[in-house]
């Protein structure tokens, strides 16, 4: 796999895609499909969540099957704060990020003692714990979830307007991607990728491997929490579905389709998956068979995902 390297061409492409995304709300208004602006926000938020998981799995090599816990924690944090009157995004969103990060530190500190399959399963177990705890709490809405009566207040911007909300989400995603790209090329990013390649050797070179992994895991958790905060705002609800293990699975599917260990893998996967879903659900209610077959095809024939197919992923020879 080697160490991640962004080429100039890739950066230029990213800028063009970004410009296209900025123009999207106007485009939709032009063709009278404004409904899709809200949908696009949802796609970008899922892209952010998938990107955060890609940091953990793709760069850190830690196959976590419990990422939904952090995603959901962020959403519930915003909804619970709103219930108690804290509606400012400047407070609620960092709080959601912080709560998810703290949860990730706790889960990571215990889970990272185990290896391989055991790690996959213990992260799943923690996510299940969070899921059942939240669902059984009547005060947080149980199975129905906790509604968020209105979107967070964001300075002078009116997030109730779908386009404005979309731009805020886009800005956050763009910043996180930029940050991830920096991290991938930084000393920390190189260390974490080398740990993915050969953990024992890194320890024998004097790196405190556990600490590096924990920091990476927690950073991923924190970003998932931020995505969760945005998701609660987008949907107007902190839903238990966000915590469900299927959600963890779907996020994994996204990064595998998009490209594990590629900065843009999460985005590519999320866009592809959700747009396909949107398109196919119209045609057949059984679109999940199609998704399953697509996923099988990717795993069997394109293990580096779409990014790998086009050579966007890692260093090439």
């Amino acid at each position, binding site marked *: 796999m080697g160490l991640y390297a962004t080429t100039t061409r890739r950066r230029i492409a990213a800028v063009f895609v970004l410009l296209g995304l900025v123009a999207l709300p106007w485009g939709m208004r032009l063709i009278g499909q404004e409904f899709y602006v809200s949908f696009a926000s949802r796609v970008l938020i899922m892209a952010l969540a998938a990107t955060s998981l890609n940091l953990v799995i793709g760069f850190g090599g830690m196959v976590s099957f419990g990422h939904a816990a952090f995603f959901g924690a962020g959403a519930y944090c915003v909804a619970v704060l709103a219930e108690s009157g804290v509606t400012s995004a400047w407070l609620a969103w960092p709080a959601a990020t912080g709560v998810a990060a703290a949860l990730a530190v706790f889960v990571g500190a215990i889970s990272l003692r185990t290896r391989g399959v055991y790690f996959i399963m213990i992260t799943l177990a923690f996510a299940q714990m969070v899921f059942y705890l939240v669902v059984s709490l009547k005060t947080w809405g149980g199975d129905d979830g906790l509604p968020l009566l209105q979107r967070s207040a964001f300075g002078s911007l009116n997030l109730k307007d779908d386009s404005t909300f979309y731009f805020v989400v886009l800005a956050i995603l763009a910043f996180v991607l930029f940050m991830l790209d920096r991290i991938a090329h*930084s*000393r920390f990013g190189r260390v974490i990728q080398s740990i993915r390649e050969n953990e024992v050797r*890194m320890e*024998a*070179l*004097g*790196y405190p491997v556990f600490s*590096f992994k924990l920091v990476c895991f927690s950073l991923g958790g924190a970003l998932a929490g931020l995505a969760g905060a945005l998701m609660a705002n987008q949907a107007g609800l902190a839903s238990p579905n966000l915590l469900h293990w299927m959600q963890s699975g779907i996020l994994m599917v996204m990064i595998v389709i998009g490209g594990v260990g590629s900065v843009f893998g999460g985005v590519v996967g999320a866009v592809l998956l959700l747009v396909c879903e949107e398109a196919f659900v119209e045609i057949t209610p059984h679109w999940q068979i199609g998704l399953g077959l697509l996923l099988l095809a990717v795993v069997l024939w394109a293990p580096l995902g779409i990014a790998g197919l086009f050579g966007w992923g890692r260093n090439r020879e």
Partner: protein
Amino acid sequence: MSEKLDLLLDVRGVSKHFGGVYALNNASLSVVRGEVHALIGPNGAGKTTLIHVLSGALPCNGGRVVFDGNDLERRSMHERVTLGLARSYQITNIFTRLTVLDNVAMAVQSRVRDWGSSFSFWKPFSLDSAIIGEAHALLAQVSLSGMANRLAGQLSHGEQRSLEVALALATKPKLLLLDEPMAGMGPEESERMVGLIEHLAQQVTILLVEHDMDAVFRLADRISVLVGGTVIASGSPEAIRGDAEVRRAYLGDEVA
């Protein structure tokens, strides 16, 4: 031999068993600062196990290890490297999917003692010219300069063994633990490795596990003989050559 010598490593009565099998049984040996100390012994004697115990890869079941004045008990693998104890592996253990330069750069970077540096998230590594420069210098030292941008997995066996040593060396250790650096090498490559170790011996203390007796007698200042998990003799090459017990237990016809 004088007892006033400056001991860098003192292994006292270390034992290690796997289930019922004793790989190390009350093994003791000491390495003096500045020397090349060879550890020899038949296959399965426990040499690699001792290297694992010294580097912290395996916990021992008894005994003490003092390195440079520090008791190593309960010190993790990476802490020991920070104290100046580095190792190479008998079975090549490198980053096969990284370039040769990245391999060594990663090792050089580990030495930056101030951890803030490796926890640096923002500055692109490609601007770390000091690290990259040092990595190139190390590659030159092990004659791998021409290979810097190849993937490590594509190197020949002998080149990988050199890279293995370079990784250990890059941490600037006080004591270098080399586990059969010449394993699987042809005569020419071995000769080059002996030259490299001779050269390194001027900068760093070395504990060398090796099967090739010619190399051992050429390189070693002192030799310890491990048989069945116990050190049965330690001394100068001449003394070891003449030791009746060693001849019986191990050297036998080989050096007769």
